[in-house]
């Protein structure tokens, strides 16, 4: 079994599906001979040829529209948006077509495509390269939004996303692309979509997060453990459709919840989770639900980006607040 970083796990999953399903194609800007700007498609064009791993002209709308067209005709395109900041021209095709193709045709056509994009801050990138706009896609009916937070989940969830008969936006937290290596068996086994993953069991409070923020959240849980506080950590993994049951079940046990995400607070997925708790978990809560998020301001250029993003300390501050209430 190989020890791989998350970005390598992405490559492994793409290679597995290219090898085992001839309807799968990878397409995007620089995904071919260059292997992608983050190396997520490294070696794939050399191995599978330029008709399976397709460099596109520099046009994001084109990548999304071609993928919709191919997907309706029996292909399984796995498209790459080079950075999430450049995904916005693709929103039209995802919202107006990918998410409604099956519905509008009463199942006559479907759209089994994956749109992959590296997202989030923390790598000292230029303007427009660091945003977390996952909520835009979570607001689209008919689209799954999946976010891995480790090499093994990147491998298993990406396989599941490609195999899913409906469109999936697969967002890869690039700050942790190469952070840790993990043993990942390249056996083609996928992981379930539409469910949260409980990464750490706890009894005193629930920390809910996804993507790169899993790192800070687990570190916060570790620091809390040193103080004798037992925090349960949930990686949401599929933010739409949302598995509220796992979160509510946890809060029934702990009575306290802090939600952590990099994206702006306003209409972020944290708001949906908090609303879900208010709706179905209120009587189990001992304290208000708190959110630790990016601010409702523009993602700053890189000198200030780590100040913008939730830190372990900000998470601990929020935890202090919810633990104060008895």
């Amino acid at each position, binding site marked *: 079994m190989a020890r791989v970083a998350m970005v390598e796990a992405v490559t492994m999953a793409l290679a597995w599906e290219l090898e085992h399903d001839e309807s799968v194609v990878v397409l995007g800007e620089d995904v071919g001979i260059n292997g992608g700007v983050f190396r997520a498609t490294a070696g794939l064009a050399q191995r599978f040829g330029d008709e399976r791993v397709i460099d596109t002209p520099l046009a994001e709308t084109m990548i999304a529209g071609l993928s919709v*067209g191919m997907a309706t005709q029996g*292909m399984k395109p796995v498209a790459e948006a080079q950075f999430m900041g450049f995904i916005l021209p693709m929103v039209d095709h995802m919202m107006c077509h990918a998410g409604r193709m099956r519905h509008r045709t009463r199942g006559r056509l479907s759209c089994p495509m994956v749109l992959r994009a590296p997202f989030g801050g923390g790598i000292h990138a230029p303007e427009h390269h660091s945003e977390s706009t996952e909520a835009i896609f979570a607001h689209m*009916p008919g689209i799954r939004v999946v976010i891995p937070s480790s090499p093994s989940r990147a491998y298993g969830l990406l396989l599941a996303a490609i195999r899913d*008969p409906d469109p999936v936006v697969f967002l890869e937290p690039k700050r942790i692309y190469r952070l840790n290596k993990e043993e990942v068996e390249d056996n083609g086994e996928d992981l379930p979509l539409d469910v949260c993953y409980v990464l750490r069991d706890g009894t005193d409070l629930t920390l809910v997060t996804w993507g790169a923020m899993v790192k800070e959240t687990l570190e916060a849980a570790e620091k809390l453990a040193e103080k004798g506080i037992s925090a349960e950590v949930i990686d949401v993994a599929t933010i739409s459709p949302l598995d509220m049951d796992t979160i509510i079940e946890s809060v029934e046990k702990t009575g306290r919840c802090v939600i952590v995400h990099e994206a702006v607070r306003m209409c972020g997925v944290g708001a949906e989770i908090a609303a879900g708790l208010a709706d179905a978990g209120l009587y189990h809560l001992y304290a208000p639900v708190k959110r630790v998020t990016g601010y409702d301001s523009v993602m700053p250029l890189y000198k200030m980006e780590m100040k913008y993003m939730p830190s372990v300390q900000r998470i601990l501050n929020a935890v202090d607040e919810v633990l104060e209430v008895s």
Partner: protein
Amino acid sequence: MPATIASFKIDYYQHLSPDGRLMGDDAPALATDFEELRRLYALMVKTRVFDKKAVALQRTGKLGTYASCLGHEAVHMAIGSAMREEDCFAPMYREYGAQFCRGVKMSEVLLYWGGDERGNNFSGPKHDFAWCVPIATQCLHAAGAALAYKLRGEKRVAVTVVGDGGSSKGDFLEAMNAASAYKLPVVFIICNNQWAISVPRSKQNTAKTLAQKGVAAGLPSIQVDGNDVIAARWAMDEAIAQARDGGGATVIEMITYRLSDHTTADDATRYRPSEEVDDAWKREPLVRLKAYLTEQGEWDDAREQALQDEATAAVDEAVEEYLAAGKPPLESMFDYMYDELPHDLAAQREKALEELS
């Protein structure tokens, strides 16, 4: 002196004059294939009778907003009759004539504009795209379909239509770029009907033709008289044959005129001089084909009357079928969202059935 490294010309094709005379001596074989011309004329008449009825249904509250295709019939027949079943059509939202050629039923068009998704699950080829409202997005879907066929080595062609307004959209330009880069089996038709709701062709840009946008992408591009079914069908045949043989995409600008309002929610008299519309009626596609066939001794009043009666009966039958369709079942709001309904949406479905049934 700079050296000229690229230059271009756009050829314009027309064989049938507005009064139905054959022009020049290079008419394609279709000009003397009277059986096929009568078939196309019959489909054009049926499309027009259908269109008139659909507008009437909207005016009497029996249909939602409807986009009329009045004046576009020759464009539609050229497209629909040139395609094979296995080819893929990616229409915008008013190419009913082309779709009738492909087996879509009149009642299904009415269902769609009558607010019912079941119209999109039509009797035409199952791989054809549904009506596409976001302007020009269908061009990329056609290019994507063509890419799928090319990658699989299938000899199938995708055909799409965009308007003069839609030709200003990035999606159209990006689709032509993709077709050029990958040499895709796709045909782009610019149905230039002179008006994008209230904005005239002259306000889209000052280029002499819209076809020349295809030249910029490296594609063979021509202009035809879109009211001349002989010229338009010839152009389609050539473009489809080239695409099927691996020769790549073509752009065909078909010049026609939107004789109707944009939709039934529009009033073109607010922005369009009536003289212009009167003048356009002199060039419309049905009159010239009928005049030509009559002149050739291939059409007469008795045939015309029989055709009108047949068209009216077919449309009446379609209207009856449409009106009898009722509402789709409540659960259909949920049941086609995903292959398998996610847990939370299943709960919403259950609650909706409980509250709304």
